[in-house]
């Protein structure tokens, strides 16, 4: 059930325009620069510093509560981090180069006669494992990053420099597709979004040999995320930037409004790297809920004291919980599902084989982690962003904390928004996530030729995760 809203002429013109994406990106890049400057030169008090307030409260709330659930990876298409690399590769800001040609240093250094010249991304990195590890690496320092403007600025500077460096040697948005620690989970959770860019008729693509949606044309660039739109099955790797809408000469690509979570309906052929992203994110949400939202001040101080013996214990706890305990429990549930089904599958006995195998039962069941994980992250985000969001007003007028009052809002007092009703928002969100997760567990069982009872262990895992989080927040 879907509707191609890009068939409405006004909307199509709007979506195909290069100005929309460029305009929003320029604004986000300007905000990004202020974040860097305030982080480097502003007050070290986080809640008076524009960088902390606008990255970890405003942007994070927008990303988790609006962008990802409703617009998928749209944020990625207007993210400021890859923008300088894009413009360098394109040697243009708005109007595309002839043939959508891209330029990299590799084009000059490694060009072979007759080849297009770009250096291919290493095969073993063509997955989101590096993004998973990147997220965990950031997570280890998160208590410090979230609360120190300087560390936030330095982290973002590292992101933009790595992105720029990668774009000098590898075509398109290789950083976003394969390395960005944020892009990994944004992609996985964006499968929930009620919007998608897809081809209208795959048969039309079959007959179109030029594949300008991939190679680029005078009308635009090839897919920045290395997608061939006709093979696109999920939002995971699509930022909905609209390049394929512009470059398809057959008008065979559309922007659809659809049933939320439609990408998850097929639980066959799921990827293990995405499964691990879901497990890791679930583990991280629990650790953050205990450490940051919990009442133990010692834990918070320990998580922030980077390099101390206590911090190494925190690192060991975070890593073992996210990489061993949660995946281990989930693996046991999937193994139990086979016992209940009465048909053991070899890929559940040999874990290495499961990683290699593209149609693993483990990865299939892991689709439940998308609605469940997103709901848990929304609940976590609600717990700290709403009560602190009012710091955005003074930080807007006094971004550096130097006593400015640019817009007359510097003196606005802290007002916790929705503080009395947050649990009443969290509970329905978690219940919806759980119901969808259980429905997906059942669907996974059926699509893998298992009886319904085989879905019980994974369903119980999901229910226990929700009860655990409710206990952390409400008991």
């Amino acid at each position, binding site marked *: 059930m879907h509707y191609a809203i890009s068939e409405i002429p006004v909307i199509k013109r709007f979506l195909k325009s290069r100005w929309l994406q460029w305009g929003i990106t320029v604004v986000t890049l300007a905000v990004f620069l202020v974040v860097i400057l305030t982080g480097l030169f502003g007050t070290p*008090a986080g809640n008076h510093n524009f960088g902390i307030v606008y990255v970890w409260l405003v942007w994070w709330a927008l990303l988790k509560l609006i962008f990802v659930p409703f617009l998928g990876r749209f944020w990625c298409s207007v993210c400021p981090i890859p923008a300088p690399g894009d413009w360098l590769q394109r040697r243009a800001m708005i109007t595309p180069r002839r043939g959508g040609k891209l330029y990299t240093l590799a084009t000059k250094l490694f060009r072979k006669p007759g080849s297009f010249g770009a250096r291919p991304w290493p095969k073993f990195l063509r997955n989101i494992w590096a993004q998973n590890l990147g997220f965990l690496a950031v997570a280890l320092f998160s208590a410090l990053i979230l609360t120190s403007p300087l560390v936030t600025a330095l982290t973002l500077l590292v992101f933009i420099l790595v992105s720029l460096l990668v774009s000098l040697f590898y075509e398109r948005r290789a950083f976003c597709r394969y390395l960005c620690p944020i892009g990994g989970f944004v992609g996985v959770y964006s499968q929930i979004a009620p919007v998608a860019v897809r081809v209208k008729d795959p048969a039309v693509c079959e007959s179109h040999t030029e594949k300008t949606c991939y190679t680029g044309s005078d009308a635009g660039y090839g897919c920045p995320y290395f997608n061939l739109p006709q093979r696109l099955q999920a939002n995971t790797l699509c930022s909905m930037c609209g390049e394929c809408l512009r470059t398809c000469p057959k008008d065979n690509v559309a922007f659809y409004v659809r049933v939320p979570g439609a990408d998850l309906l097929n639980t066959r052929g799921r990827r293990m790297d995405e499964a691990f992203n879901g497990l890791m994110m679930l583990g991280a949400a629990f650790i953050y809920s205990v450490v940051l939202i919990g009442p133990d001040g010692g834990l918070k101080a320990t998580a922030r004291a980077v390099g101390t013996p206590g911090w190494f214990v925190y690192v060991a706890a975070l890593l073992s919980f996210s990489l061993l305990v949660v995946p281990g429990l989930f693996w046991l549930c999937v193994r139990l599902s086979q016992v209940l089904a009465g048909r053991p599958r070899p890929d559940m006995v040999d874990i290495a084989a499961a990683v290699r195998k593209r149609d693993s039962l483990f990865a299939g069941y892991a689709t439940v982690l998308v609605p469940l994980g997103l709901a848990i992250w929304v609940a976590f985000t609600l717990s700290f962003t709403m009560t602190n969001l009012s710091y955005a007003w003074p930080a807007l007028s006094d971004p550096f904390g130097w006593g400015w009052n640019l817009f007359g809002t510097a003196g606005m007092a802290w007002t916790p928004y929705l503080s009395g009703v947050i649990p009443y928002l969290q*509970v329905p969100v978690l219940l919806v996530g759980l119901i969808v997760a259980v429905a997906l567990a059942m669907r996974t069982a059926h699509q893998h030729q298992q009886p319904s009872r085989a879905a019980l262990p994974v369903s119980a895992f999901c229910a226990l995760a929700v009860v655990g989080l409710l206990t952390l927040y409400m008991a």
Partner: protein
Amino acid sequence: MIGTQFARRKTQWLFAGVTMALVALALLAPLPVTGAAPQERHITISAHTFAFEPGTVRVNRGDTVVINLESADVMHGLYLDGYEISTRAEPGQPGELRFVADRDGAFHFRCAVPCGNLHPFMIGKLIVEPNLPWLRAVAATLIAAVGAGAVFWK
């Protein structure tokens, strides 16, 4: 075949309806509240280095709660979610909060005066027992899980 599918769809809708009704019942049904007789409770909370001590405070519904907030380092505040009341304290100058705990559940209290980097996460918890909202949420979760399983069972 079509008849079987129709009957199955009908059963699914029935299960979905019953599940939603039970979830709503678990979350909203009025329950008799019994517990210890209300009393006045004096609680001293020390605020220092981004933490409240004790971090978790338990009282009974109906108790008159008097919180004495002491600061051991810089100025701190205490804002109680749900009750929307606050006080502040600095070293040598404690603050006081007096209220009747007439709403049950868990309520975060958080520092209301910017006190340093970890200030947004300087959080404690007041639990007004019996903690029915949590019990209701857990019951609703279990009902929702079982109900969703029943709806999609083949």
